[in-house]
């Protein structure tokens, strides 16, 4: 009883320790010039892509990893340089500079001959692209490691991390992919499992606040758009004839099809809205989660100038809320990957539908075989 009370007191006082350094900092800021701490700007800056990877704020500047910038401009051809060069020389290098505001805010632009800002062909390795490369390499290392171990000893009971991965993969395969896709689940299982683990790993890496995590990859609508387009290609390029027949000439009363093709139009729109919903669902969930976490953390900075008492109490609240929201975001990371994979599997299963005439014949031959035997 006393031991438990002692443990509880240790944890609660540990939480109060989080407020001490900031109450000290609040007393020293009034002397310097107080920049307005703009929460919305900070959240958007953390959610957006960038040309360098900021690791930490140090005394006068930051420690950043400069990333290569690859440009092709119509006037001067190909350019390849590190993004740190864009910060010397008053932020311009060879005529390229990062636009401070306007339509291309935050992106590299140059001024063409008539003086208007124009964007060159930008193939740079930005923060999101570098994080994609890192997470892909990490995923390949993990999965190939598990695969090699399973190939060497397929019948052995695995322990540790490989056992956990085996359980994870088998649970997704047996509970999501097999029932949803149906007969030819083995053909689509590689794609669906890859999608699941790719989305899950990128979601989790986006929650880690320090390098090499923390790049908002799955919250970038371009990434989710490519995932949705890939699913749409897999569904429509491998759909059976029966699937296309059900889109363009569905089994409905004739007046819904003949003078005005109402049902075919609705079905055709459905072909595009289903992957669109996949894209928006993943993007909005992950982006919303990240902005909530950053917003709660910024409570500490917003209350920094308001005196030590308010600051330390709000910091304590902020730490508790942020930890809670981070746990929720971990659950959301798994659920969103699960829902994306499950819906892709269901759509693929719906596209691999056999004709109902063939199904009737199959049932009849089974019935006859039973009667004979």
């Amino acid at each position: 009883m006393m031991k438990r009370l002692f443990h509880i007191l240790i944890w609660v006082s540990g939480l109060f320790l989080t407020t001490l350094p900031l109450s000290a900092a609040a007393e020293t800021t009034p002397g310097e010039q107080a920049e307005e701490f703009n929460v919305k700007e900070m959240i958007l800056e953390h959610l957006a892509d960038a040309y360098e990877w900021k690791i930490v704020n140090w005394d006068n500047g930051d420690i950043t990893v400069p990333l290569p910038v690859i440009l092709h401009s119509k006037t001067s051809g190909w350019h390849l340089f590190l993004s740190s060069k864009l910060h010397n020389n008053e932020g311009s290098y060879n005529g390229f500079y990062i636009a401070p505001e306007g339509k291309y805010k935050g992106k590299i632009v140059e001024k063409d001959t008539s003086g208007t800002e124009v964007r060159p062909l930008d193939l740079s390795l930005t923060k999101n692209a570098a994080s994609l490369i890192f997470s892909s390499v990490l995923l390949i290392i993990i999965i190939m490691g598990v695969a090699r171990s399973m190939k060497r000893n397929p019948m052995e009971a695995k322990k540790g991390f490989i056992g956990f991965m085996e359980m994870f993969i088998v649970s997704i395969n047996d509970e999501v992919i097999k029932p949803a896709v149906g007969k030819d689940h083995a053909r689509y299982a590689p794609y669906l499992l890859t999608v699941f683990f790719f989305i899950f790993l990128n979601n989790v890496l986006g929650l880690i606040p320090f390098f090499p995590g923390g790049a908002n990859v799955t919250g970038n609508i371009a990434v989710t758009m490519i995932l949705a387009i890939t699913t749409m290609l897999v569904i429509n390029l491998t759909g059976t004839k029966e699937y296309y027949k059900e889109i363009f000439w569905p089994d409905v009363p004739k007046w819904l099809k003949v003078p005005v093709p109402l049902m075919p139009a609705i079905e055709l729109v459905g072909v595009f809205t289903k992957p669109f919903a996949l894209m928006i669902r993943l993007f909005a969930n992950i982006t919303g989660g990240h902005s909530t976490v950053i917003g709660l953390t910024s409570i500490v900075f917003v209350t920094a100038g308001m005196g030590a008492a308010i600051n330390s109490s709000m910091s304590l609240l902020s730490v508790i809320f942020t930890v809670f929201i981070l746990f929720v975001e971990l659950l959301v990371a798994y659920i969103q990957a699960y829902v994306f994979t499950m819906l892709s599997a269901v759509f693929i299963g719906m596209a691999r539908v056999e004709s109902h005439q063939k199904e009737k014949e199959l049932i009849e031959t089974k019935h006859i075989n039973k009667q004979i035997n």
Partner: protein
Amino acid sequence: MELLSILLQATGTGLNVLGAALGVGFAVLGAGWGIGKIGTSAMEGIARQPEAAGDIRMNMIISAALIEGVALFAVVVCGFIL
């Protein structure tokens, strides 16, 4: 014609921001009510048959994620308006 001139008078004010905020509020209301109904029926199902708790839990989470997706559609569209 009068309707057009009345509507044009409202363009300069901050009414678009008000509209976006109201839109998000209604979307959250809808999502909360829908997911509440899912939770209710899931709880009742588990209370009737505790052995099916695992199946019911997975289906509840899937339905909640789908409804949340629709609500986040509205949030994204309102974010574009802002």
